[in-house]
């Protein structure tokens, strides 16, 4: 089981802040993204955005990063704090 979380305008666009995903692991962040699109084709225009950032277990990573069972995978727009 992988815990997936979304933030900011992506959360608003998907109307989802969190979901669980069953995937055979280890896989990559890109695999998680693809699985989400397979389950929710209407998310294409928001989730296929190349500017999106991702984190695995609260560390920012690239989309080829590994994901293991029990990990938390986060997707969010470029950050704008400070």
């Amino acid at each position, binding site marked *: 089981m992988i815990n997936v979380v979304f933030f*900011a305008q992506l959360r608003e666009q998907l109307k989802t802040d969190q979901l669980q995903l069953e995937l055979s692991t280890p896989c990559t962040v890109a695999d998680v993204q693809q699985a989400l699109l397979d389950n929710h084709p209407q998310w294409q225009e928001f989730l296929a955005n190349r500017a999106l950032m991702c984190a695995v277990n609260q560390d920012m990573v690239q989309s080829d990063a590994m994901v293991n069972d029990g990990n938390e995978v986060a997707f969010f727009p470029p950050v704008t704090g400070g």
Partner: protein
Amino acid sequence: MTDSSNVSDSHSDFDFLSVQEQDFDVAFEYAQLRENNSQDGAIVFFSGLVRDFNQGNDVTGLYLEHYPAMTEKALAKIIEEAKSRWPLSRVRLIHRVGQLYLSDQIVFVGVSSSHREAAFEACHFIMDYLKKKAPFWKKETTKKGDWWVESLEKDEKALDKWQDQ
């Protein structure tokens, strides 16, 4: 919601990091950097405020969302990186979240060092990295409606100057 702590065991007991809804007091933060500290000749701080005009909009307020499980971890990593690059004695970093209004304080970064150059560069570095690496998102309340702030390419470029050091 308050979530504050000394940064990590490997750092000075004087380091402080907090992600919080409530306001902060710059005079108190400055006093903490200075107190019982006769070794440091230089204190630099940055304070970020909600300004009235941003990206073409008349701003009346700001909502700051963050990723609670990640925020402190990301900020602690930035402080750690700064301390590995410059001889800093003390670092204090506070970032507010939630609803803010015009002229409110958003973020404070204060550093002390025995060297002026180190204090300036480290404070600047921490803010540049925070802008690109810490999971905060601003939604602005404007007279035309509410908008998520767009990330700026210049903030991306601001990181370049720290690459070859």
